[in-house]
C-alpha cells in the first residue's frame, strides 16, 4: 500500500510537455464562465420536481407531523411505539452518519456506547434511587469518557484497521456487560423507573414519543449547524485524506476524536432514553449485531446525510418488525431469518446503490443554491516579522534517505523576503520531497530548516501552517463535493476561532461570516468568482490548482509553496497566474515554486535552484541558469 517515494514522479522529463498539451486539449472550449448555478448539476432530468424547500422549513414540517401524530385518532399504539424505536435508532445512526459518511471512519461498535448510557442510568436509578433526569449528564459522561479512551486508542488507526478495532471492542464490551455483577450479569437490570414530569409517569408511548423525537430533531439541527461551520469544514475535509487539512493547521487526530466522541454521545443519549422507555436493560441490544444494524441504517439512509439517518433508521426498524411478524408464519417458529434478509440487502445495496436512499429523495426538490457570502469585515492579518534581517526560509544541508535511496542529498538554499524562487529539475530530482521536508510532511534524515530565523526542523504540518507557510499540492487535494468557497474557507481555518459548541449553537456566525468573506475575496483575487459556489470537483484540473492557490492565500501566508501551479493551465491562465504572483511579490510575499514550464519560470522568478538526482547542481538568476552547462546536461543529456 505504501509506494516508494520515487514512484509518484516517475515519468521521464520529456513526456511532460506532450502530456501538458494533451490535458490542455481536453479542456472545454474557451467559453468558460457562463453563469452556471448549482442547480444544473445534481437534479436528474425528467423526474418529478417539487417546489424548493428550505431545510429549516422541512424540519419544521417534519416536527409538526411528529407532534400531531400521537393525537390523530386511529393511529394504533404499536405504531407509536415503533416510531419511538425509530427515533432511538435514528440518534445512533445520526452519529454514524457523521462518523462514517462525513468523517470517513467506520464503527461496528456504536451499540456498546448505547450500552454505556443505558447501564449507567439503570444502575443509578435502581440501585441508588436517582431520578432518570438526573442521570443524563452522568450517562453522557460515561459514554463520552469511554469514547475518549477508545477513541484515543482507535481513531489513530488508518483505513480498515479502525472498523476492525471497533468490531473487537464491540464484542469485548458486550461480554463485559454480561459478566459484571453490578450490571446484573446475563439477567440485566429490570424495574427501571420511567421518565416522569411533575409526578406524571411517561409510561404511555404517546407521551414519551415527544421526548424521543424532540431529542432526535434537536440533535439533527445541532448536527446540521455543526457541519455548516468552521469545525464542520474541518471534519468534512478528513474524508479525503488528512494531509490537506493538516497543511492548513487542522489537527486531524483531534477532529477525528471530536467526531468519534460526538457519535458516542448520541449513542449514549439513545441508550439513556432506551433504558427508561423499555425499563429493562440486558446485554443483547448492545452487541455486535446491533452495531452492524446501526451501520446498516446509516449506509441505507445514505451515509453523510443527516436526514438519511432518520430514513435509514425508519426503513430498517420497520423492515425488522415486518420480518419478525411475517417470516415465522412462512418458515415456521423460532427461526429468525431477518438477519439473512438484512445481510442480503446490505450486500445488494453496496452493489446497486452505494449512495443510499436519501440522495434519491432529496433529488425530488431542486438543489438549494447558496448565496454568495456578503462582504464581511476583513480578518486580522499576520503581524510583522520579528527578525526581518534574516533570509525568510533557509534549507541547510537537507538530507532525506528512504532505506538505501537518497531522495534529497545535502541540499541547501534560501528564499529571501519578497522573492519568487523556483525549484526545477527533471522528474525524480527530489523537488516534491524537498517541499515535503519544508512543510513537515516528511522528516529530514539530517540537516535543518529555518523559517524567519526559527528552527522548524521536524515540526508537524499544523505548526508550519501556523507560522505562515501555505502550500498547494502536485496532486490536487480538494474535497470535490465541497464548494470552491468552502474549500478556500478551509485555508482560513487558523484565522477563525469558533469551536464545536459555538458552531452547534450558531454562536459562530460573526466568525463564520468573516471566514467566508475572506474566502470570497481570495477567490475573486485569483479570478474564479463565477465558480465560487460550484463543487470543487466540477472544475477543470487547472482551475482546481488555482483554487488551491486561493486556499493557500486564505491562510494569510508569509511564504507560499506552489507545487506545479501552472500544470494544466492554458496560455492566458498562465499569464494571469504570473501576474497574480508578481502582485503578491510586490506586496512582500515570498513564493517558492516547483514548475516544469520553463517559459513560466524564466519570466517570473528572481532565483532558480536546480536539483538533479536529489543533489543541487546549480542556482542563480534565470539568465545564468539558462546557459549553465550542468543544467543543460541534466535536462538534455549532454550539450551538443
Amino acid at each position, binding site marked *: 500500500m505504501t*509506494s516508494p517515494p520515487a514512484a509518484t514522479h516517475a515519468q521521464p522529463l520529456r513526456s511532460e510537455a506532450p502530456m501538458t498539451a494533451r490535458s490542455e486539449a481536453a479542456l472545454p472550449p474557451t467559453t468558460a464562465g457562463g453563469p452556471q448555478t448549482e442547480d444544473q448539476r445534481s437534479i436528474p432530468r425528467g423526474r418529478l420536481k417539487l417546489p424548493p424547500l428550505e431545510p429549516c422549513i422541512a424540519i419544521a414540517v417534519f416536527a409538526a407531523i411528529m407532534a400531531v401524530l400521537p393525537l390523530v385518532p386511529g393511529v394504533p399504539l404499536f405504531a407509536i411505539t415503533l416510531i419511538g424505536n425509530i427515533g432511538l435508532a435514528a440518534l445512533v445512526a445520526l452519529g454514524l452518519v457523521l462518523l462514517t459518511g462525513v468523517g470517513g471512519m467506520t464503527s461496528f461498535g456504536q451499540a456498546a456506547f448505547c450500552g454505556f448510557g443505558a447501564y449507567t442510568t439503570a444502575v443509578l436509578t435502581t440501585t441508588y434511587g436517582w431520578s432518570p433526569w438526573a442521570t443524563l449528564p452522568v450517562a453522557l459522561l460515561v459514554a463520552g469518557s469511554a469514547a475518549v479512551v477508545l477513541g484515543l486508542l482507535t481513531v489513530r488507526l488508518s483505513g*480498515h*484497521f479502525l472498523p*476492525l*478495532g471497533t468490531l473487537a471492542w464491540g464484542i469485548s464490551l458486550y461480554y463485559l456487560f454480561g459478566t459484571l455483577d453490578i450490571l446484573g450479569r446475563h439477567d440485566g437490570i429490570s424495574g427501571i423507573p420511567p421518565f416522569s414530569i411533575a409526578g406524571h409517569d411517561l409510561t404511555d408511548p404517546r407521551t414519551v414519543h415527544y421526548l424521543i423525537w424532540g431529542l432526535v430533531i434537536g440533535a439533527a439541527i445541532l448536527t446540521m449547524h455543526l457541519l455548516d461551520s468552521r469545525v464542520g469544514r474541518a471534519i468534512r475535509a478528513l474524508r479525503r485524506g488528512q494531509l490537506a487539512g493538516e497543511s492548513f493547521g487542522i489537527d486531524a487526530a483531534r477532529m477525528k476524536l471530536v467526531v468519534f466522541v460526538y457519535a458516542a454521545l448520541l449513542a449514549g443519549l439513545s441508550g439513556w432514553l432506551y433504558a427508561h422507555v423499555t425499563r429493562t436493560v440486558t446485554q443483547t441490544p448492545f452487541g455486535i449485531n446491533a452495531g452492524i444494524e446501526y*451501520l446498516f441504517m446509516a449506509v441505507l439512509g445514505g451515509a453523510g446525510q443527516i436526514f438519511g439517518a432518520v430514513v435509514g433508521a425508519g426503513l430498517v426498524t420497520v423492515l425488522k418488525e415486518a420480518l419478525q411478524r411475517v417470516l415465522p408464519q412462512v*418458515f415456521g417458529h423460532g*427461526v429468525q431469518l431477518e438477519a439473512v434478509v438484512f*445481510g442480503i440487502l446490505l450486500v445488494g445495496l453496496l452493489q446497486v446503490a452505494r449512495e443510499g436512499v436519501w440522495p434519491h429523495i432529496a433529488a425530488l426538490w431542486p438543489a438549494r443554491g447558496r448565496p454568495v457570502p456578503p462582504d464581511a469585515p476583513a480578518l486580522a492579518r499576520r503581524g510583522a516579522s520579528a527578525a526581518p534581517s534574516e533570509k525568510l526560509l533557509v534549507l541547510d544541508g537537507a538530507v532525506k534517505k528512504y532505506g538505501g535511496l537518497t531522495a534529497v542529498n545535502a541540499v541547501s538554499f534560501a528564499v529571501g523576503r519578497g522573492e519568487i524562487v523556483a525549484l526545477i529539475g527533471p522528474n525524480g530530482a527530489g523537488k516534491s520531497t524537498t517541499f515535503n521536508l519544508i512543510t513537515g510532511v516528511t522528516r529530514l534524515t539530517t540537516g535543518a530548516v529555518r523559517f524567519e530565523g526559527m528552527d522548524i526542523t521536524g515540526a508537524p504540518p499544523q505548526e508550519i501552517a501556523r507560522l505562515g507557510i501555505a502550500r498547494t499540492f502536485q*496532486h490536487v487535494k480538494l474535497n470535490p463535493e465541497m464548494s470552491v468557497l468552502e474549500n478556500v474557507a478551509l485555508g482560513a481555518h487558523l484565522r477563525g476561532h469558533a469551536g464545536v459548541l459555538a458552531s452547534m449553537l450558531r454562536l459562530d456566525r460573526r466568525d463564520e461570516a468573516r471566514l467566508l468573506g475572506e474566502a470570497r475575496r481570495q477567490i475573486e483575487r485569483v479570478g474564479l468568482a463565477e465558480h465560487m459556489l460550484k463543487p470543487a470537483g466540477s472544475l477543470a484540473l487547472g482551475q482546481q490548482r488555482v483554487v488551491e492557490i486561493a486556499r493557500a492565500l486564505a491562510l494569510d501566508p508569509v511564504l507560499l509553496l506552489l507545487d506545479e501551479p501552472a500544470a494544466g493551465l492554458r496560455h492566458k491562465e498562465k499569464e494571469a497566474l504570473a501576474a497574480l504572483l508578481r502582485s503578491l511579490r510586490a506586496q512582500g510575499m515570498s513564493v517558492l515554486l516547483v514548475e516544469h514550464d520553463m517559459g513560466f519560470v524564466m519570466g517570473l522568478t528572481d532565483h532558480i535552484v536546480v536539483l538533479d538526482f536529489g543533489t543541487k547542481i546549480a542556482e542563480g538568476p534565470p539568465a545564468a541558469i539558462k546557459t549553465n552547462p550542468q543544467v543543460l546536461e541534466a535536462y538534455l543529456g549532454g550539450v551538443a
Partner: protein
Amino acid sequence: MDGTILLFLLQDGITNGAVYALLGIAIVLIFAVTRVIFIPQGELVAFGALTYALLEAGRLPGTVWLTLAFGALAFAFDLAASLSTGIDARKLTRSAGLTLALPAALLAVTYGVAGAGFGPGVHILLTLALVTPLGPYIYRVAFQPIASASILALLITAVGVHLALVGLGLVFFGAEGVRAPSLSELTLELGPLLVSGQSLVIYAVTLLAIGALWFFFERTLWGKALKATAVNRLGARLVGIRTTFAGALAFGLAALVGALSGILIAPVTTIYYDTGFLIGLKGFVAAIVGALASYPLTAVAALAVGIVEAFSSFVASDLKEVIVFMLIIPVLVWRSLTQPHVEEED
C-alpha cells in the same frame, strides 16, 4: 498455578492456536488477493464442523442444500453478466457445470454416503468437497461485482455476508449443537502431560496445511499467479492473470482451509450454527498482528491468541472473550504507530 496446570493450559492454547493459525492464514490470503476483509471465514469453519459431525452421526447435512442454493445464485449472476455482454455459450456451459452440476452431483453423492456406514475418511473428503465450492460462489455473488470498490465497502459487504450466512446456518443446520467423535482415540503420556490424539492430529494437519500452502505459493504457477495478484493487481492483469479467477481461487482455498479447521475442531468442542463467528474473529486478531500480510507472523500470533485464551479462561473464565478481544486494541495501536498512514496518491 503449578507446573502441570501450566503445561496443560499451554497445550490447550497451542491446540486452539493451531486452528486459529489456519483461519488467520486464510484471512490473510483472501485480503492479499482481493482486499476483502473476510469476516465470514468463521462461518465456513462452523459449516465444515457441522457437516462433518452430521455425516459422522449418519445424517444428511444441510450443506448440500446450501451449496446448491449458492451455486444456483452464482449461476444467476454469471447468466445476468452474460446477458448484458452478449452470450458466450462456452463460458456459460462451464459456469453451469461448476455452479449447477457440481452441487447436484455432490447432493447425489451425499445422499448415497449419509448413513451408509462409511468411515471418517470419506466423510472428511465429502465435507471438504461440500464446503469448498461455497467460497468461490460467495465471491461471485457478493464480491466480484464490486471488486474494485474501497476496502471499506468490501468490509461492509463482508459483514452483510456474515449476517446472511449465520442466518442461513440456522435455517440449514437448526439450532442444536453437535459434536463429532474424536479423530483419534490415542492418548500419549508425556511426563505429567496427557496429550490427546486429537491434539496431535490438529498439530499435524495444521503443519501439513501450512506446508501445502507454502508449496502452492512457491512451487506452482497458480500459486505464483495469486502472489502476483496480491502484489500488484493491475500488473497481474497486464501479464494475463485474470483477477476474477484469482479471487475465486483465493476464496476457494480459504473455504477449503475453513472446512478443514471445522473438521479439526468438531470433536473438540460443541459447534452451533453461530459458533464460527467468534472462532473466526480470533483468527482475525492473529491476522491483524500479521498486518493482514505476513503468514508466519499470523501463525505465531495465532498461537499466542490461543495461549492467552487458555490462560484467561483458567484465571477469569467469565472474562475470557473480553480479554481476547481487548488484546487486539494494543496490537492495532502498535500497528498504527509503526506503520504511519501514507496517503494514497490518486
